[in-house]
């Protein structure tokens, strides 16, 4: 097994509100291995974006409540502002969900890149060759460097941010819903470009966050499914898709439309009910109210059980096999 690059243990990131804490990431644990693409899947409000953003840019109203995320021997959740500034971008970087809006509209692209690199003891000139090489991967001409953000289309800006955020060759790249706002044909090209960047060592490992399991299937080596702020299941992509363990993963996979299945012949089923409100939420499995297999024990928090490399947080697997 490859070494862990990032180890997350019992991580808790809450949102502080007038009424109490919204427990968006509540006791999440996983490791990101060197060279892998770890996909994080889940529905809106499951905490996947809070987790990805919290690891890189923890900002109020997000509050780090407990646990740790070890990168390079240090808990990056508990560093001073000065230390985190150095690690962020150089060691761990992010392509945010609204990458299109991440660029300062009053500056030329070249200036934006230079400013950022100077913060990290480098410069545009120093990295010129690398920048041009990376632009070619994402199918952008180097002419964009002399343009203002407004002159680029949304798709071009997104690809540009893919290049800018990885210029320091970070160990970990968090890609947060980068394919969600795109047309299907563009979606595929963006996934392929990201893969090529990784092949060319633009980053070591990727945390790829999306609500779209079908996209994740294309790029992730392993998938972590989140539900209501907790880990539901972690496992190798192919195994999880063929043989999902957690009832939530099973139902989610079964609800996906696929070519060959049409309403007139076969009816797909959704998951009845809605996710719980995470404000001041109490103990117990958070899926229990929608789960067809729930039983008495589900009133207690399930730990994450380890089944030969596959992890699942469900009492059905307390004795290893599904009961």
């Amino acid at each position, binding site marked *: 097994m490859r070494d862990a690059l990032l180890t997350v243990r019992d991580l808790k990131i809450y949102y502080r509100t007038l009424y109490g804490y919204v427990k968006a990431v509540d006791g999440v644990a996983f490791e990101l291995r060197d060279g892998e693409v770890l996909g994080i899947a889940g*529905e*809106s409000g499951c905490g996947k974006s809070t987790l990805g953003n919290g690891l890189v840019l923890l900002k109020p109203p997000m509050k780090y409540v407990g646990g740790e995320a070890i990168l390079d021997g240090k808990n990056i959740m508990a560093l001073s502002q000065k230390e985190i500034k150095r690690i962020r971008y150089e060691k761990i970087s992010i392509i945010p969900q609204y990458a299109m809006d991440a660029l300062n509209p009053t500056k030329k692209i070249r200036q934006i890149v230079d400013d950022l690199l100077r913060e990290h003891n480098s410069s545009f000139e120093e990295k010129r060759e690398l920048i041009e090489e990376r632009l070619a991967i994402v*199918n952008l001409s180097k002419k964009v460097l002399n343009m203002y953000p407004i002159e680029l289309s949304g*798709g071009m800006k997104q690809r540009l941010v893919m290049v800018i955020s990885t210029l320091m060759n970070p160990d970990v790249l968090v890609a947060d819903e980068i394919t969600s706002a795109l*047309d*299907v*044909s*563009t*979606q*595929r*090209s963006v*996934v*392929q470009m990201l*893969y*090529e960047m990784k092949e060319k060592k633009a980053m070591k490992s990727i945390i790829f966050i999306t*609500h*779209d*399991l*079908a*996209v994740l*299937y*294309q*790029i992730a080596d392993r998938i972590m499914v989140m539900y209501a702020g907790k880990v539901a299941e972690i496992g190798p992509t192919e195994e999880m*898709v063929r043989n999902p363990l957690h009832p939530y993963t099973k*139902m*989610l*996979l079964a*609800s*996906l*439309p*696929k*070519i060959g*299945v*049409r*309403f*007139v012949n076969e*009816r*797909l*089923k*959704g*998951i009845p009910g*809605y996710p719980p409100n995470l404000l001041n939420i109490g103990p117990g499995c958070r899926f229990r109210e929608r789960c067809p297999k729930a039983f008495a024990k589900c009133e207690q928090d399930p730990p994450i059980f380890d089944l030969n490399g596959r992890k699942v947080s469900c009492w059905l697997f307390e004795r290893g096999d599904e009961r």
Partner: protein
Amino acid sequence: MSFLVVQNLTKEYPLGLLGKEKLKAVDDVSFEIERSKIVSLIGESGSGKTTIGKLVLRLLKPTSGRIVFDGKDVFSLRKEELRDYYRRVQGVFQDPFSSFNPIYKIDRVFDMVFEEFLPEVKASERKARIEQVLVSVGLNPSQILGKYPHQLSGGQLQRILIARILLLDVELLVADEIISMLDASTRVDVLNLLGDLKKRGMSVIFITHDLSLGYYISDEALIMYRGSIVEMGDTEKVFRNPVHPYTRMLLESVPEVGKKWDLRERFTPELIGGDSASCKYYDRCPIRERHCRTAHLQMVEVEENHKVLCLKAGA
């Protein structure tokens, strides 16, 4: 007999300050819809699918062409006829949160339907009718009525809007990306709801960018590219035997669990060219030939109920 006929529909938007240049959002589009059918309009952003929906709902006026509903031209309807039209044709849109006025309770949506379209229904009967339609879209009336929009989820709000359609017993629903904001676990149920409505005799124009959803629910599929329908017909035929190179490219890029892409392959679909060629897909087309630039394009029937706008379709 088709009860909605769209004939040579064109909608141009002026471009630039003086509006001398025009953008053809919808370009000479013709199709028909029969009763009790779901027809999906599938296309990427800028394909004109939403504009067609808005034209059918009379939210926009066409530059040229006609829309005929039940024998009458939709754009020449007068007062009472117009009320009747909206009694029979309604829309539901992408963002459920913006379809509700946040300062009123949910109940108002239904009250307005009764006031405007069903004044003959007595006040005493109204509540029972509302509860009945809410139940049939899978909602519990006691959890919905009396609430404000912000207290409900997107999936619940979208179902409420469909319940409103049920109350009216609408004949044609324009559903514009109604499930793209919903989560995977709830979106299938809303789709199934459309399928059930179809069984009751309603037709649906299902506008979507998501091919797999269109495939699942619709009887017929229209594939749009930059304002034109490039391929249309029986859903199974269009998806199983795609003929237009654009449809093929789209289908290849749909992600599906269990079918892996070759990530090493270079896939660059994006180049959008000028408008000079007569085929709009010319600049991106892998099988183009010189005469595709200039020749007049016409829909060709490749098999029964399956047509394609491509010169190379018959060859």
